[in-house]
């Protein structure tokens, strides 16, 4: 908790942005815990209702823990045309879950993301914040193998 509190304080001093405070907390704790949101509320002197009102609007914020590895596949038209549907199917099969789920062991979360601006090399996806491009379905097995190494 003290780490979250510290990062909130440093964001407040640096940019004063509420969204960046949430991002910092999420980076430290994996998701927006109630305790962390209270810390933001206190640091920014904003009531908890308003804190939730803002945080719940943005799709990057989580309110529950996710898998250790989060795979987010772009589902917008350019990636769709380039075969993102097949990529998702290959990932679902390899991980044994459907999109939107987390594996039972908590190792992987598979979900959609909106356009990530990498349409020059679609289908594209993001793994724990890192962009991977041209991930056609035939490259899924290799990609997952490279993650476990």
């Amino acid at each position, binding site marked *: 908790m003290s780490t979250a509190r510290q990062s909130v304080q440093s964001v407040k001093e640096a*940019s004063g*942005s*509420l*969204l*960046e405070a*949430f*991002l910092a907390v999420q980076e430290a704790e994996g998701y927006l815990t109630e305790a962390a949101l209270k810390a933001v509320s206190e640091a*920014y002197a*904003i009531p908890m209702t308003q804190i939730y*009102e*803002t945080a719940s*609007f*943005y*799709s*990057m*914020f989580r309110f529950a823990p996710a898998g250790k590895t989060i795979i987010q596949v772009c*589902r*917008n*038209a*350019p*990636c*769709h*045309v*380039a075969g993102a549907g097949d990529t998702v199917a290959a990932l679902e099969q390899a991980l044994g879950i459907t999109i939107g789920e987390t594996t039972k062991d908590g190792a992987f979360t598979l979900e959609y*993301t*909106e*356009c*990530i*601006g*990498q*349409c*020059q*090399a*679609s289908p594209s996806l*993001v793994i724990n*914040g890192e962009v991977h491009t041209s991930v056609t379905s035939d490259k899924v097995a290799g990609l997952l193998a490279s993650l476990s190494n």
Partner: protein
Amino acid sequence: MVQEMRITLQNVGKIDPRSIDDYMQAGGYQALEKARTADPMELITEVERSGKLRGRGGAGFNTGLKWRGAAQAKAERKYVICNADEGEPGTYKDRIIMEGDPHIVIEGMLICACAVGAAEGYIYCRGEYQKANELLKNAIRQAEEKGLNGGVRLQVVSGAGSYVCGEETALIESLEGKRGEPRLKPPYPTVEGYQGKPTVVNNVETFAAIPSIVEKGAEWFQSIGAKKYPGTKIFTLSGDVVNRTWEEVPTDTTLRDIVYGIGGGVPGGRRLKAVQVGGSSCRFITGGMLDSAADFDSMARLGASLGSGSVLVVDDSHNIVDVLVPITDFFAHESCGKCVPCREGTMRMAGLIRDIAEGRGDEEKLAMIRMLSGYMQSSCFCPLGQSATTAVASAMEYFPEDFEGKLQRKEAAVHVED
């Protein structure tokens, strides 16, 4: 023959984006120096006249006019905001600029601050663009170290995943720490923007054009491209095209030159079916319309739009209804929920399109789509909802047999126009 012409991308790939010295050796920050010695109103007139630079984010509003509004507004504080919340599907032009030449954006913003009398500025950079965010922060730090910021405090602030925040008033709300819901206009941001103060919000590509305009002048910029939308535009290609790539060209370049000249046409012996210029909020056009120039007004004459300059190419292997599924899903996900027609309409539209795509369609559902589309275009609060069904409406107009094929549960109907 496609003639590339790089103004906003002049340094991309040529300089180290982390080095201010590289940028300055390429002539960077000389326009800022020139701007600082000029009379602010003359500077604005130059931008206004100077090629009638019109916003490159998609709305095409005259940039100089925006600046004049903010400059003439009386207030003790004014703000300059760079809209780097690029999120229109298929668009990656701002990322290319910010990752390749962040200083050109900073210089454009500092010139604007000088013209309108602002001492503070923000770059609202989408949360997914971590690399651009870091490069911009580095560029600001370097400009400050060299004393180039002239007392103007610039800051990069991250978004957190919201398409509607690309709308300028929603962006301002978000920057103020609130939900990104658009405000009623007027008042326009140039009168009451960030923290209620006069604010200029311009797109990354718009700011990146400013240094060259200040340096080379009105006549030069106006002589390039289409008369009423002069200059250059970056186009970003995606979909069924040989070269999924990007290029900056004069605005009078034809769509055919963009799709075939830059993009190399459709791969794998397939044929072109549809092109969607401007992103998911824009219309599909057919192969027969490609001889039009790509500028703002020529696209409007086609009933389409230039939008962000993204170019999604769809070949004849797709039924257009299948392409509408991710498009309508996108709007259902990104609707901010402020107004009922958009919140409910985008959700219903996505459901109806999915029903048809998956073989559960009937004539009644098609009629409902038409009706809903009309209601949403006329009654949604902001451009997101108003344009959420634009692609659907154009697809129904140009590819009725694809819908018919889905109703009869046939495989992809094929419609080709060369």
